[in-house]
């Protein structure tokens, strides 16, 4: 394991040295982790490094000196510049740069190097999406219908993920052991079988091996003690020993596979989030009802101590994939931040070289969260939410960010699904329309970006009749009584948002992070206000990384208040009496602070 870490470090440093021309850590006269961050102040006129004195008092950061993604159009984010990634595929010649909804106009090519920027999106129908992302931040791809060889024109430092599945049902079946009897694995080393499955064999085309377990569920202690095969009559000591074997045996399936993969030459081995992993080591609780659970405590987390740390200490990455059941911009981001905080707290109990990186990837659409008609099911999250989902977890200590979305591989998410009755369609722009019913002379209604309309009828004359979804109204504003609107179908289509449009939010977020990548990677995530508090008190979301005397802060106010707000950080960075006020608005903003010597 230590060997693998060493290799990883060498690989990472080598990469940075190659691409950025930085000196290796330990040799700098000028601090390479700050070089691009400070240089940005010269490239973006408004952006400034903001000095502050660590003494009691109140400091309000000047919003005019913050950085938003809009500031980065036309700015060279990478030296030497990254070559543009050519569009590929059968109709590549037809594509003009800047034509797709997910593209940020004027953004020059760049790629993250020290942090993971992950795309697991779509399928071959989304080849152009991958091409654009490869040249605009993303450095790690799931194949998603391609092979690395297919995308050989991507930047050299691009990483490819090989996701393999280990079938533990087979293992138990072959061993003639009842499925899910993890206690058996405490005594039987599964490495030979894993090796036989060849899933951990070297594959130089890929840089990251991601282990996925096809397995029986892990039982919690209560359920375990209800099993027929639990030694109910045994003395307490024996029961405890049995339980330990059960959970250690479970951890072994990950640890053994990771160890084998490392031995086979894989430098980066990760696990895909599954039930029984982070959710049991550090339960986030039900974000949507209460959010009072404290940050995880490795001392008291039973699951972490029983098996979590045995797994975590043996892998390099934990890829936590999250999908969002509800339409809740702030809640979605805070959910990820809780996971980051929990993982950071747990990691702190491991020796530094054994701490896995948490890669937080999110589904960029809302899953719906239940049955029945839910207008938000399948709708793309707002672009700024995706930006925040990209930036904030990284400043909270996550090693990576990204998107994951399974789509019909042949369907492009740039293409609008055809209008049909019952379809809920998200709008991308502002327009005004007078209702055509249900009663005459109703006043005009203004539609805005991210509004959703519900199609009620398609006319034979090519018209479409629809209603505006109004959350909070009975049946969300859809019914015979509610105003109806009619447009030619083609005209409504012109106002509709494509599913992939919000990927621009990811690109914008990665662009924001890029100049600070080294600072983030080498700095330490700090937190003044916990996500639980930000959620309950509807506060602006703010996160911070400290590197030496520099502090990088990200601030965003997703709550829709009609006044400019500030995130208030009391006793900032442990300085008693120092209150930092960080202006936050609907755009994710970065502030770079430099602490004056006292």
């Amino acid at each position, binding site marked *: 394991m230590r060997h693998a870490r060493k290799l990883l470090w060498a690989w990472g440093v080598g990469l940075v040295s190659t691409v950025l021309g930085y000196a290796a850590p330990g040799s700098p006269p000028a601090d390479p982790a700050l070089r691009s961050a400070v240089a940005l102040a010269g490239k973006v006129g408004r952006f400034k490094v903001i000095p502050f004195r660590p003494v009691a008092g109140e400091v309000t950061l000047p919003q005019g000196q913050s950085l938003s993604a809009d500031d980065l159009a036309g700015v060279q984010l990478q030296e030497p510049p990254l070559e543009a990634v050519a569009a590929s595929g059968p109709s590549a010649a037809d594509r003009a740069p800047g034509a797709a909804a997910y593209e940020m106009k004027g953004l020059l090519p760049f790629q993250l190097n020290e942090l993971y920027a992950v795309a697991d999106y779509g399928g071959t129908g989304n080849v152009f999406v991958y091409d654009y992302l490869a040249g605009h931040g993303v450095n790690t791809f799931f194949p998603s219908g391609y092979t690395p060889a297919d995308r050989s024109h991507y930047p050299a430092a691009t990483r490819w993920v090989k996701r393999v599945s280990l079938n533990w049902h087979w293992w138990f079946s072959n061993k003639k052991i009842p499925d899910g009897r993890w206690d058996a694995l405490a005594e039987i080393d599964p490495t030979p079988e894993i090796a036989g499955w060849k899933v951990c064999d070297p594959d130089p085309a890929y840089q990251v091996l991601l282990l996925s377990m096809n397995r029986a569920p892990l039982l919690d202690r209560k359920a375990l003690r209800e099993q027929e095969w639990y030694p109910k009559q045994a003395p307490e000591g024996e029961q405890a020993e049995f339980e330990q074997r059960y959970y250690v045996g479970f951890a072994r399936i990950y640890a053994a596979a990771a160890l084998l993969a490392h031995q086979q030459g894989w430098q980066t081995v990760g696990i895909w989030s599954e039930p029984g992993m982070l959710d049991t080591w550090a339960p986030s609780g039900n974000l949507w009802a209460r959010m*009072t659970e404290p940050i995880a405590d490795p001392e008291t987390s039973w699951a972490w101590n029983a098996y979590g740390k045995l797994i975590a200490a043996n892998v390099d990455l934990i890829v936590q994939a999250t999908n969002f059941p509800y339409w809740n911009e702030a809640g979605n981001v805070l959910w990820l931040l809780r996971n980051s905080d929990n993982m950071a707290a747990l990691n702190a109990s491991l020796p530094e070289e054994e701490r896995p990186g948490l890669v937080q990837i999110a589904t960029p659409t809302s899953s719906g969260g239940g049955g029945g008609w839910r207008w938000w099911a399948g709708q793309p999250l707002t672009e700024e939410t995706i930006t925040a989902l990209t930036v904030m977890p990284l400043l909270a200590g996550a090693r990576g960010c990204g998107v994951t979305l399974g789509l019909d591989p042949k369907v492009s998410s740039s293409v609008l699904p055809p209008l049909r009755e019952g379809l809920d369609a998200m709008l991308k722009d502002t327009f005004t329309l007078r209702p055509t019913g249900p009663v005459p002379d109703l006043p005009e209604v203004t539609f805005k970006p991210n509004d959703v309309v519900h199609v009620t009828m398609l006319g034979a004359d090519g018209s479409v009749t629809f209603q505006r979804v109004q959350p909070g109204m009975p049946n969300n504003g859809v019914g015979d009584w509610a105003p109806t609107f009619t447009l030619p179908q083609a005209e409504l289509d012109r106002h509709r948002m494509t599913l992939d449009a919000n990927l621009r939010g990811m690109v914008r977020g990665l662009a924001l992070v890029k100049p600070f990548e080294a600072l983030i990677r080498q700095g330490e995530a700090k937190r003044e206000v916990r996500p639980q508090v930000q959620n309950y008190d*509807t506060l602006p979301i703010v996160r911070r990384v400290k590197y030496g005397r520099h502090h990088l802060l990200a601030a965003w106010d997703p709550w829709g208040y*009609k006044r400019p707000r500030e995130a208030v950080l009391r006793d900032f960075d442990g300085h008693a009496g120092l209150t930092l006020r960080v202006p936050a608005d609907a755009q994710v903003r970065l502030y770079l602070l430099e602490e004056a010597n006292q």
Partner: protein
Amino acid sequence: MSIIRHSLLVAGLALLCGLGSLGAQAADPGLAEIAALKAKVRSFVPATLPATGEVVLRPEQGVSIDDLREVELDDKPPVLGKRLAPYPPEMADDCPEGERPLYQPEAIRPFRFRYFHNEFNVFGGHTWSLFDYAALHGFDILVRGVPEEVRSHMPADTHWLHMFYGPGWDEWMAVHQIPEGRYDLLPPLETLVDMLVESGKYDKDPLCDHLTFDMEHGWLRPDNLRKQDWYPKNATAEEQAAFEQRYIRGFANTLIAPCLAARRQGWKNLGIYGFYPYPRQWGGLDKAQADPAGDWDWNTWGKDVYNAVDIIYASVYSFYWSPGNVAYVLANADLQKQMVDSMPVKKPIRFYFMPTLHGGGGGWRWWQGQPIAREEFQASLSLGLFTGVDGADIWSGGRSEFCSPPIPKANADLMIADDFVADSEAGEAMAFKRYDVVHALSVDPEKKTVRFQKIAPGKPNQGVNDQAPFYTTDADELRSHLIPFAESFLGIFEGLALAKPFEYLLRHGEVKQDIPSTVQFGKGLPVVRRVKLGKISVIGTYDPNVIFGGQPRNVTLPDFDGHAGLTLVLPAEAKTRIFVVMEP
């Protein structure tokens, strides 16, 4: 007696002549108010009292709600504008076409008060048409929860109330990692206010000019505080006193900080449901006395909270099915008023009503959730405005039966609306009367029948037992005899309408208690209230005995208004009546 009646008639006529001339001159708004009513209600006879003797007023000399039907109550009645869009069926009345919703009393013309303020704080299904009606019948402050579709067409002088069900201190403290109930560990007041303001939840809603917090969290008085594990039992007396001070200040700050936060953000007209200068009382109310100088809570923290708010709410939820309810409402208002009157700045008090019986505790209580009787609400609302308050808030949510009686369901307790006779399963006839309650044991969906027993207070298990008669009847038939939830609202609107013609006098006059409401409560007397302005006394009466099966009683007021030898006798019955008498 006949002589007295004769002289009274003369006196009445004399007053009438006087009212006529005064009305023409519009010199005295109180007299003008009486004259205006007299012009509209011919049977209404204000009486001039003799110096001594017994004066017996007849019911018809007063005004009941029936006298006000089809009467113009407001010379500038409120008018609804044009709707933005039709109401969704879930929120509109669900009455059959052409039928009047059951919350609308017959022929009460639109009106609003000039001198009182009433809050309509109702939410839930089928309430938007009810909102429209309330906005035209006595309520000028409406809860903000309704959407633009409802708000847009309200009368121009409508005010909006933001109901803030927060900040939820238990959860707030948990989120901020402060152990439950440890008010001593809260940040200082200024920091607390800053934190609340930062949340944005206290931002001024430009639409609203009233804000009510619902904060009902508890605290420990010193004797209980000292029993807590976390109390510094081994500290010095001085340290313990400082701890107790910190604790109670912390608790007070949980009430004060939201007000200061809201005020900083521009809110005015702040009130707290859950803060009472005199806590709502039922048990021992007959002997209750406000003691502003000696009340520990009031003097330790209550006054500070009082200073932080603008409106005082007097929660008068009725707990029980009891003839004491109206007197309880009035007595609690009186006690609250005495506390308020002890302060240099006297803040307006508004009743806080719920249209159903609260229940008053856990377990099965057949009366819990029953609609408050129409007659009782009529009395509480109209006579409530005789107590010196500013108005009332009606809070209700979750019930939506505004067009039909409840559907009988197993284990439901159902109140009877009208008299009928049913045979028991043993063949014995039983007369059921209005306000009887039956307990539905089961419902047969195939036969569409209900099996039930009659609630009999005082009997084993309230009459629901194997020894008591069982009845089985057609479910629809039983339903047709049930009181709908909406009946409470009839009483609410009628009560306000009844007070409307007297509002100037009630608001500007002096509250007089010929028989304290605590005594009326304790002795089960008929209810009487009076307000005096100049020589005019407006007197309201109500006898709760009647709907509980008793006979109507008179109210006798000896040495009326301090006039030795002058006795005033007023009738009291199930209908609230308002009389006007004038000193010679």
